[in-house]
């Protein structure tokens, strides 16, 4: 069985049928990129997988356990970590605190939510008492996590390390996105969900982010990625799933998906002459007109 398995999910928003029976699988250690024009349902799919929202139909499985319909904080405890499309760091927390918060679910014996109400009350009371008393075991755990957080920050070279005591709102946009990724990594996720990790970044920053993602890949991190920049998708993805109008249009190895005529049609429309399609097929780095538009930020 796959690490993550999305089976035939549907989602409606009022009259809009945002997802119509999407299925996809992610194997251990694999990087899968989800592409598609704006409004294809990519972020909706991400919200369902991260349990931010629940599907109207269909199932989502992680590690052999069904997760759809779980509250998001329990999905996180199962090993799902995500970044957000526009970046959602905790502005008044420092960079280090942001990353440490990412490790929240790993504070074993502290933050485990009890199951039944009585258990939940008991575990919350224990968490308060431990928070006040701060026994040695607890301080050691914090120290370990802090060391690890700094290690995670160091994968971005000297972008974040010199700023780890600054509040996140004082960071540049690209640094906020990096902080967000670092926070997600601190969860030690089984599956890392990256929603446009390079949106709004310039070419240098994009290349740096690509390197980071490749490095995570080498470390065996399983990733699901939404991305518009095709160069990056080509560089990192093992497989590509193209969504259009809430359905899987094409999926397969990047090279194969890139040249699929159905995809080009989805981006530039049916009546397009061969010029943009030709450009893409001729080994250009972009799909066509609209992909190029979103790529040239």
């Amino acid at each position, binding site marked *: 069985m796959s690490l993550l398995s999305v089976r035939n999910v549907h989602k409606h*928003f009022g009259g809009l049928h945002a997802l119509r029976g999407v299925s996809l699988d992610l194997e251990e250690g694999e990087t899968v990129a989800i592409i598609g024009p704006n409004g294809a349902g990519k972020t909706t799919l991400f919200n369902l997988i991260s349990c*931010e929202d629940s599907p109207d139909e269909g199932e989502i499985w992680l590690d052999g356990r069904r997760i759809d319909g779980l509250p998001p904080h329990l999905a996180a*405890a199962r090993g799902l*970590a995500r970044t957000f499309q526009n970046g959602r760091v905790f502005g008044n927390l420092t960079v280090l605190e942001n990353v*440490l918060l990412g490790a929240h679910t790993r504070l074993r014996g*502290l*933050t485990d939510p009890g199951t039944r109400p009585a258990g*939940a009350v008991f575990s919350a009371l224990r968490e308060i008492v431990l928070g006040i*008393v701060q026994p040695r075991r607890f301080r050691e755990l914090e120290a370990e996590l802090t060391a690890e957080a700094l290690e995670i920050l160091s994968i971005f070279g000297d972008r974040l390390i010199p700023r780890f005591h600054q509040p996140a709102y004082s960071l540049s946009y690209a640094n906020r996105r990096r902080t967000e990724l670092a926070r997600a990594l601190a969860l030690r996720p089984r599956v890392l969900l990256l929603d446009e990790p390079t949106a709004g970044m310039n070419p240098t920053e994009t290349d740096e982010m690509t390197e980071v993602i490749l490095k995570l890949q080498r470390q065996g991190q399983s990733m699901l990625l939404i991305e518009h920049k095709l160069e990056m998708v080509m560089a990192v993805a093992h497989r590509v799933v193209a969504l259009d109008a809430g359905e899987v249009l094409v999926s397969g190895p990047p090279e194969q998906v890139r040249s699929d005529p159905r995809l080009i049609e989805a981006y530039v429309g049916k009546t397009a002459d061969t010029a943009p399609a030709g450009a893409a097929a001729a080994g250009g780095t972009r799909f066509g007109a609209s992909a190029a538009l979103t790529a040239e930020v």
Partner: protein
Amino acid sequence: MLDQWINGLVIGNLYMLTAIGITQIYGVAGVVNFAHGSIYMFGAYIGWMAITWWGWPLLPAITLVLAGSALLGLLLERVAVRPFARQGSTILLLTTIAAGLILDNAAQVIWGPQTQALRNPLPHWHFRLGNSTVTLLDLFILACGVGTALLLHLFLYRSRAGWAVRATAQDREAALQMGIDAGRVSRLSFALAGAFAGLSGLLVGLYFSNIYPMMGASATLKGTTAALLGGLGNVPGAILGAYVLGIVEAFSVEWLGASYRNLVAVVLLIAVLLLKPRGLLAPRRALNPEPTAGTFIPHGRPLRFPRWAAPAAAAAAFALPLALANPYPLQVLAIGWAFALMAVSLNLISGTTGQISLGHAGFVTLGAYASAIFTSRLDLPFAASLVISPVIAAAIGVLLCYPALRLRGQYLAIATLGLGEAISLIALNWDAVTLGPLGISNIRPPDFFGYELVSPAAQYLLALAILLAGVWIVHRLGRSHLGRALRAVREDEVAARAFGVGLSRYKSIAFGVSAFLAALAGVLLAHSYSYIAPDTFTFALSIQVLTMMILGGRDNIAGAVLGAVLLIALPESIRFLGEYRFILYGLLLIVMLRFRPYGLLNART
């Protein structure tokens, strides 16, 4: 039967006049206007002056009321809303509360705190309808209500200005870009809403034949309930909500008794917040759109003090009784320490976790009553009660708040206000346990193993020791992983939740610890006042504590203590300030939020 329907319709009409204003203002300014009841009260007083002092007939008096309260609405917009429009809706909530506080207490200074009789100048005609009587005033109120609703409808849907108002309410940014003068729309809405509120105040005064400076509080509560029933921002909904509230109230007063009138409204308020927070007419809700990057509100960082500063301050405070011959400052400061404990505890909810609580007085009441009952009626020793009462109060507090904790921002604030009111109304109505409106008197002074702490110095030291224990708890929590999790909830609930911070759990933790500490302050005060009643700790106290916290600086423990000491000690030491104390609080809140929103002990970053 018929009686209740007529009653309900008349009262419903009165509520409608406030509710449509509240809902309209929410539409254009995004805030539940907590000063609405104060404009309503001013309207009543303007009409009272015109009728009683100057002997004006009703219609000119109403014209004057409409004009006067419209002006007041404009003034409110200019002073308490416009300068804060960019600071977000929770800040606006605080500034309108502050404005209300100022207006209510100004009325007390101008016209005196006593109830004034308001004679109805209409002829006392009445006729019978079945078994019930309908007076000319009833018909007049119905006509005013229906007429206003019709005029408002014509304005909103048939005039260009009304079109602009509706557009602004739907999407302010888009309206601005289309060339709509949003400032004008806002002023127009506040003027209209003010005029309706004033009219409503006068009519209520005529209906019950009396007016008093604090009459606005219940109007705000009822108007907000009606507006929430209809869905905030929805004018036809508010009209429906007002009639529903009026009729439900009329029937429950008949069945349960008049003292339940307000409790029924509060229960309805809480029920709608929990079950249908978007109102009875609302469609199913969709996901909130993702915020765009860069919408952070910087909080300010705590000023740095040397390490020895806190222990030195504590030692100085402990040594103070040795240096003072006069017991009076010690008495004042003992009260100050209790308030500091409240401010510190509120700081955990509002400063650290970012949730506005307007019901903090409820927790204090719970603690005070629990201890009064345990020690006076069950003869438990004070030392035992000091531990048990706050635990019980915290348990009840969290249990009550828990269902409301999934609400956000203003909705949670209003729910906490409702819960705080509910707690004091239960104390009022549960005679068997709380002795009802009489309150509990002869509460013993604090004692430990037979030693009574009667001297001011002893009570001062006890309050100080308990405050320091509370400060230590909140300080430790704030520096632990819990502090990080609570701050994450404050910064971004969606992101916090996505990283395993369950919102209900962590908000409950914040509310639980906070309720425990607030209740501890309640125990102290109950035994130091020796008497408590359902109205000892009111909404005004919740606001007072909120002001202390904001004065000192959000998420800043030392700041909360400093704010409390300043606000308790200043009015005591400067005599003439006593009478103007609440006006001072209101002004201070507005001035601080305008010019130093991060508080005295936080620095801008």
